[in-house]
């Protein structure tokens, strides 16, 4: 179980690195799909089917929007020529990343072990599940206990749609 997750995560990391270093945008977008769909499988393995369903839909929609954005563009990316200076930058980047990883390792040491039973926060929600009359605890939390959060989410989504429509409107105000 944990081994499967590690394999999928390594695949996702490789896909994201290739996506960032690809020389044309279409292959960058496609290999970004590896990360999203790997996340779907990880959610399924972690017993979160609701999230997996939502993530599939979101991933497909994101890929379609991205391909629409780069469809008619000149998508080749010029390669950076290698200079000795760049090697120093890479070394600094790796060192900073290593420091970040070490700090993160210390910080997650304070968390409980992966797979430990830490239901202290969730226990009231599970006990109150009978009141919501919902068989699915996740939808019970989203639509009953935390309905105001969902209202806020709907507001953000509405605002984003209005923003996209405003930005992409063909007819704009003409400059004088």
């Amino acid at each position, binding site marked *: 179980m944990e081994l499967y997750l*590690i394999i999928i*995560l390594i695949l996702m990391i490789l896909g*994201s690195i290739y996506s960032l270093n690809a020389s044309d945008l279409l292959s960058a977008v496609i290999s970004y799909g590896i990360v999203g769909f790997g996340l779907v499988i990880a959610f399924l393995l972690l*017993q979160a089917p609701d999230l997996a369903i939502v993530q599939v839909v*979101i991933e497909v929609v*994101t890929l379609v929007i991205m391909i629409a*954005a780069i469809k008619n563009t000149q998508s080749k990316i010029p390669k950076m020529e290698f200079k000795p200076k760049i090697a120093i930058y890479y070394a600094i980047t790796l060192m900073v990343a290593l420091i970040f990883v070490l700090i993160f390792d210390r910080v997650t040491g304070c968390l409980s072990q992966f797979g*430990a039973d830490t239901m202290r926060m*969730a226990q009231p929600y599970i006990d109150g599940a009978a009141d919501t009359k919902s068989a699915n605890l996740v939808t019970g939390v989203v639509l009953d206990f935390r309905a105001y959060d969902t209202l806020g989410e709907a507001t953000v989504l509405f605002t984003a749609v209005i923003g*996209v429509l405003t930005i992409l409107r063909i007819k704009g105000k003409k400059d004088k």
Partner: protein
Amino acid sequence: MIIYLLCFILFLVGLYGVISKRNLIKIIISIAIMEYSINLFFILIGYVEGGTAPIITKGFENAKFVDPLPQAMILTSIVIGLATTALLLAVAIRIYQKYGTFDINKIKDLKG
């Protein structure tokens, strides 16, 4: 704990992309990757060994469930992530229509 570390490395890959890449689409991809890694980290924290999906069905009334609270949070977070990505891509499309390139260095030069 190695699984938390791999999740964080995915985040760092996204951070590297945001800082070092010059193409607008690649910057948007990096932001999306960072967001995915954070979503995954929350679900990893909520996982319980041997737990089932938090859905009460016949015969599973008192089964061991995984934590439903992070899942509910991340459900909101995923949808908001789509909204922000779509907004960023709309801005990128507009920039391409105006300047004819996704390269942020060239856009900076053209602006003057």
